[in-house]
């Protein structure tokens, strides 16, 4: 008997759908779900697809040091990447530095901006991924802009966000209107729940579809081959989420 589809499995599947057609997907640190999503997409791709998982030995195609991923991104050789944020606002600005108080002595301090202030401009398909969907995270305006959302400011920017994936829903980012649009709500959740937990305005069609779920064959693939593959880099995650594959 098949277990119910877990939250993580839905997110992994959704990410794999969002990555379709990519030649090279890179996944940053502390990102087991995006990593698994990229590996799932790769497993189902018809063309050759490269996946770079930061911290992996096996899924690592760089030999030129830490700078290579960034150079690749500038060269147009990274089709998709993932960014998160302690705060995300309705203009797709993201904050990975801190909240409250006066910088640098903010009340809350997160690790720092990592590569966001660069990759966000250059990777054509940036997926904002933040599991926690609350008004604490989804704010009207971030306190510190680690990386700005797209603006019509003349700055060289071949890349940018395609949307924001959370535990509740998938927002697509509209680069014309510079706003999020609620594109699908995950099974078991509602538009009202999304609205209640989002601090920024977003566009919302009259009928919001439900986020598609993986079919049994894909689910099986996630639970076996993909779980084992991502387990190389994230053993603890796999132990917790896919105990059978650990």
């Amino acid at each position, binding site marked *: 008997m098949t277990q119910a589809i877990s939250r993580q499995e839905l997110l992994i599947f959704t990410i794999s759908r969002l990555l379709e057609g990519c030649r090279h997907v890179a996944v940053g640190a502390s990102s087991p779900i995006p990593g698994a999503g990229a590996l799932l997409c790769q497993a189902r791709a018809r063309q050759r697809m490269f996946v770079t998982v930061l911290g992996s030995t096996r899924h690592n195609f760089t030999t030129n*040091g830490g700078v*290579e991923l960034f150079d690749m991104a500038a060269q147009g050789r990274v089709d998709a990447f993932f960014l998160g944020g302690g705060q995300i606002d309705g203009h797709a600005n993201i904050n990975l530095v801190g909240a409250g108080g006066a910088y640098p*002595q903010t009340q809350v301090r997160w690790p720092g901006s990592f590569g966001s202030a660069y990759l966000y401009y250059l990777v054509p398909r940036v997926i904002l991924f933040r599991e926690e969907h609350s008004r604490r995270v989804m704010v009207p305006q971030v306190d510190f802009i680690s990386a700005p959302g797209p603006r019509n400011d003349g700055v060289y920017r071949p890349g940018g966000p395609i949307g924001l994936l959370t535990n509740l829903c998938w927002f697509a980012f509209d680069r014309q209107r510079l706003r999020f649009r609620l594109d699908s709500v995950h099974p078991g959740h509602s538009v009202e729940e999304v609205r209640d937990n989002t601090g920024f305005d977003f566009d919302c069609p009259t009928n919001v579809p439900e986020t598609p779920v993986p079919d049994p064959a894909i689910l099986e693939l996630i639970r076996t081959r993909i779980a084992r593959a991502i387990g190389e880099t994230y053993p603890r995650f796999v132990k917790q989420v896919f105990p059978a594959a650990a």
Partner: protein
Amino acid sequence: MTEHQWLEPTVDSLARLVPHGAMVAVPADYSGIAMELTRALIRAGVRDLHLVAVPVTGLQGEMLIGAGCVKTIETSAVTLGEYGTAVRFLDALKNGRIAIKDATCPAIHAALQAGQKDIPFMPLRGIIGSDLLAKRGDWKVIENPFATGPDPIVLLPALKPDIAIFHAPYADADGNVFIGRRRELVTMAQASRTTLVTVEEVRDDVDLMSSEETAAGALPALYVGAVAVAPRGAWPLNLWDRYPVDEAHIRQYCEMARSPEGFQRYLADVVYPRHAAE
């Protein structure tokens, strides 16, 4: 091995080559962290370091900050990853005991590449519109002189650390250091005035420069000021895939480092005893 001019007898004597106030470059956890040397720097009481994380730091930066060795940290992140929060870093930052130059990873790499070429600056895409730029007085924006229309671009001043520090599997008989594909270590070393390296061992039977295969993964001795042997010198961190992280120890650290007193106890228990034993 006493014939090696470049070999320091102990990690503590290597640490004494780092003066107060030095600008010191250190790699990210995946590149080999000289943790025993970090402990030796704390034992030596080094002060006022300008720590440049290439491009982020974890336990090493956290401990140096906690022990009061750091005046300024330049980094794209300070994180202990899944093990917890870098509490000593947060505490020092909040209480104004350290200055921070928040950066983004490729900017640190690019600024070091400028140092490596000894050009005064390096242009880099992105960054414009980020508050990082607003908070850093040292990054400039110019109009790209090669563009036909408006095209603002950031210029980063070169980073030229006094000293680069890392831990590697081995040095060969001539003092060349095996770094594999961790080429950020090459950039760090070339951009810095000198480089201090701890190694698991000195392999007098190896000449890394003797073949294309081995030379590809070598940092030439020319860049290395001094080396000291430190078996398991990255502990409690991992050295690449040579040995794993000591997770239990790092969890213990995180537990103790929650309070200043706990951190001092950690120093007394873990950092200082080795010194007494020498």
